[in-house]
């Protein structure tokens, strides 16, 4: 036990050393005043947004595509990219100071920002358009936006419309950032995007729900009917209009070009960073909830997968050839498909209409993968017990069943359990992809915190330690079981 604790500390120290050493000051101070100055530079931006398609056509610019605003800003801080381009309102002043990043200039272009809806969902779109037009006309929209940008008092909530709808408004945000849309205290969503949608839900008599996903997954969710509205300070572009419908615009946005503000990086102490990442807005609750979600998915998938795995093992050892072939075919299928792809197919295609929650779909998907590894481990563990053991049991007068349970199984268990424990740990780690179907597990919790605090080290370090401890616990429990 002391050995594994020592190993744990060693790993943490290594990771910390690694991360602190590479947080350099980047390239020299640059004078970037307009689009012409961007030539020859590396620009970081969120994958799939307007700037991605715009600058990917310019050969004199290298693009560094990231998944979130925080990663984009981090790229500039680490010197991987020279300029980070996003909405002008994108980076809160506090974060700019913390990262040592400043706004170099504001672009000339202006964009209409709107909500995305599934193509052909005209009923909802007309509803939303009517609401947006109404609040634009009476000045509520301006008041909402200035509330989030300048801190003016928030306007009152609208009265429900004359003919209220029932049900839940499922929103997916591809952005977790002040002041647009962010997860704040009490696991609640804030920012003007969220505020407008919340008011729309209240106005139309629906319940409000919001999940966080990257833009690509969010659009898939929208098109497969998993959610009703996607928001992320989305610009209306022709390209996007081919695959989604947009509401009327609710905001006009300008691009902001951010660069390193040399020497202005505010060095926070470790205590301040821990406080920022864990205490502020009760962010530790995200971690705890994520941890519980990860444990739930892992444990239930292990249990279900082990039951299925026993079946797979029985098929592999069957006397009937077609049973063995079927089991092997299943194995070839499971081994040949990445777990993430299987998870997405299960969620968006196979079980899309089943009404099962993402957590249940994740448990089923992981159990299907685990069934094969567990089944083949059981099979080879049983095969590794010499045939003579069975013969000796039979020759003493035990029935074939008693021979298996009393003599073969205990020996197979000893041989198979270490491998089985390894597979359990592998399963635990592979659950970190469930964020793709909007489940807030441990990894996604760290993403959410990271995208708010723009601190790469602390949240990653915390989840690393937690995964490590979980893996260690799995092995510990299984070893205790073996000793018994």
């Amino acid at each position, binding site marked *: 036990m002391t050995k594994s604790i020592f190993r744990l500390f060693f790993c943490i120290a290594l990771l910390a050393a690694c991360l602190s050493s590479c947080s350099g000051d980047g390239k020299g101070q640059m004078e970037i005043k307009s689009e012409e100055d961007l030539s020859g530079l590396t620009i970081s931006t969120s994958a799939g947004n307007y700037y991605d398609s715009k600058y990917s056509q310019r050969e004199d610019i290298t693009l560094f595509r990231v998944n979130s605003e925080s990663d984009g800003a981090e790229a500039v801080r680490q010197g991987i990219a020279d300029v980070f381009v996003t909405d002008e309102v994108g980076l809160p002043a506090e974060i700019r100071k913390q990262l040592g990043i400043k706004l170099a200039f504001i672009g000339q272009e202006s964009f209409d920002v709107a909500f995305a809806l599934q193509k052909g969902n005209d009923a909802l779109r007309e509803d939303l358009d009517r609401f947006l037009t109404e609040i634009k006309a009476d000045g509520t929209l301006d008041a909402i936006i200035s509330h989030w940008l300048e801190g003016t008092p928030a306007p009152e909530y609208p009265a429900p419309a004359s003919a209220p709808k029932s049900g839940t408004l499922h929103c997916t945000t591809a952005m977790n950032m002040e002041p647009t849309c962010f997860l704040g205290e009490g696991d609640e969503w804030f920012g003007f995007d969220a505020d407008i949608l919340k008011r729309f839900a209240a106005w139309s008599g629906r319940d409000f729900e919001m999940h966080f996903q990257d833009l690509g997954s969010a659009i898939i969710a929208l098109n497969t009917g998993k959610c009703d509205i996607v928001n992320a300070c989305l610009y209306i572009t022709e390209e996007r209009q081919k695959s989604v419908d947009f509401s009327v615009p609710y905001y006009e946005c300008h691009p902001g070009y951010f660069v390193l503000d040399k020497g202005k990086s505010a060095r926070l102490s470790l205590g301040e960073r821990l406080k920022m990442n864990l205490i502020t807005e009760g962010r530790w609750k995200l971690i705890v909830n994520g941890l519980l979600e990860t444990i739930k998915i892992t444990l239930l998938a292990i249990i279900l997968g082990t039951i299925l795995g026993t079946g797979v093992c029985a098929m592999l050892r069957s006397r009937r050839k077609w049973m063995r072939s079927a089991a092997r075919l299943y194995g070839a299928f499971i081994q040949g498909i990445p777990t993430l792809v299987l998870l997405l197919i299960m969620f968006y295609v196979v079980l899309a209409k089943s009404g099962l929650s993402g957590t249940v779909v994740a448990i089923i998907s992981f159990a299907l993968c685990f069934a094969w590894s567990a089944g083949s481990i059981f099979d080879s563990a049983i095969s590794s017990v010499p045939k003579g*053991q069975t013969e000796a049991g039979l020759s003493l007068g*035990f029935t074939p069943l008693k021979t298996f349970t009393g003599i073969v199984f205990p020996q197979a268990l000893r041989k198979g359990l270490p491998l089985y424990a390894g597979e359990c740990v592998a399963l635990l780690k592979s659950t970190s992809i469930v964020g793709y179907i909007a489940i807030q597990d441990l990894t996604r919790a760290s993403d959410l915190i990271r995208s708010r605090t723009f601190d790469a080290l602390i949240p990653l370090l915390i989840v690393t330690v937690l995964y490590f401890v979980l893996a260690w616990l799995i092995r510990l429990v299984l070893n205790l079981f073996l000793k018994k």
Partner: protein
Amino acid sequence: MISIKHLSKTFHNPDGSTLTVLKDVNCDIEKGEVISIIGPSGTGKSTLLRAINMLEPPTSGEIWVDGENIMAKGYHLDKMRRKMGMVFQSFNLFEHLSVLENITYAPVRLLKISESQAKEEAMELLKKVGLSQKADVFPDSLSGGQKQRVAIARALAMHPEVILFDEPTSALDPTMVGEVLSVMRQLAKEGLTMLIVTHEMRFARDISTRIFFMNEGIIYEDGTPEQIFEHPVHSATKAFVNRIQKLVYQIDNEDFDYLQIHTGLNQFCLKYNLSDKARTGYEIIQEMLFRHLKNVRPLTFRITYAELAGETALDFMVEGITESPLPHNEATQQLRSRVKDIIEEPTSRGFRIKILL
């Protein structure tokens, strides 16, 4: 007690070919008999044994145990196997249990005797096979001979009416064969019914009340050890029981490969466990070829070992002469004192000097 009628067993290989190992086996085994099954490799000795307790279900025929047809549908094999112990070539001790647990495991669960009584009996049995010191160790740490003795104790713990021994010493180092055979000798003396597949001819002759000589998938000859070993009826039996191993060299001139003979002798002695004879044999061959028979060429030189008689001999054969080529002097006199016997005899084609080691 056990009656076998027209038993046959055919194996179907995955490639579609078939192999008939047992053709038509018939025999009756009575209580108290000690039967050794001998015969060349691949004639179905082990298959017969494994068919009797249905570990290898026969293709056709009948097996009756205590008046019941055990091949009948729905027959409870486990009940029959409780009174029919089995000792395997590869021991098959339960690796996850201690020596004592190996012995008590079945009686506690199948005979429903108390744990303490089973332990007591197991200790008694371990004492009998000379391993009471090893009660608490795991099979891993035992030698082959010790493992086989534990396996015998494990079979005895079920108080079987008969024990089947499937080549119990074939997987053992030559040095460990003796300890297992002496335990089996003791059991035979106590009147246990035993059915033994073995290659230990002397042992089979000493302890058996009956011998089955198996050949080509049937019991070729069945009789007392005396009948089988001294007066076999069939020529195949005769050839088998008098099994003689040979090594022959033709020596034509002075340039023969002496080193080849030397290595050959070493390997021969190693193979038939005759290491004690190797040194003397080597000295005598050298003395004969380079001194006493120095000028006698060509000659044929042969090393023979009769397994059954336990006789090792060196033959020097010279063609076309009628008198012994061995001179009678002080040196050859001294040679006689170092071996069991020297026989000088004329043969149909010449003269032979046979030296018994």
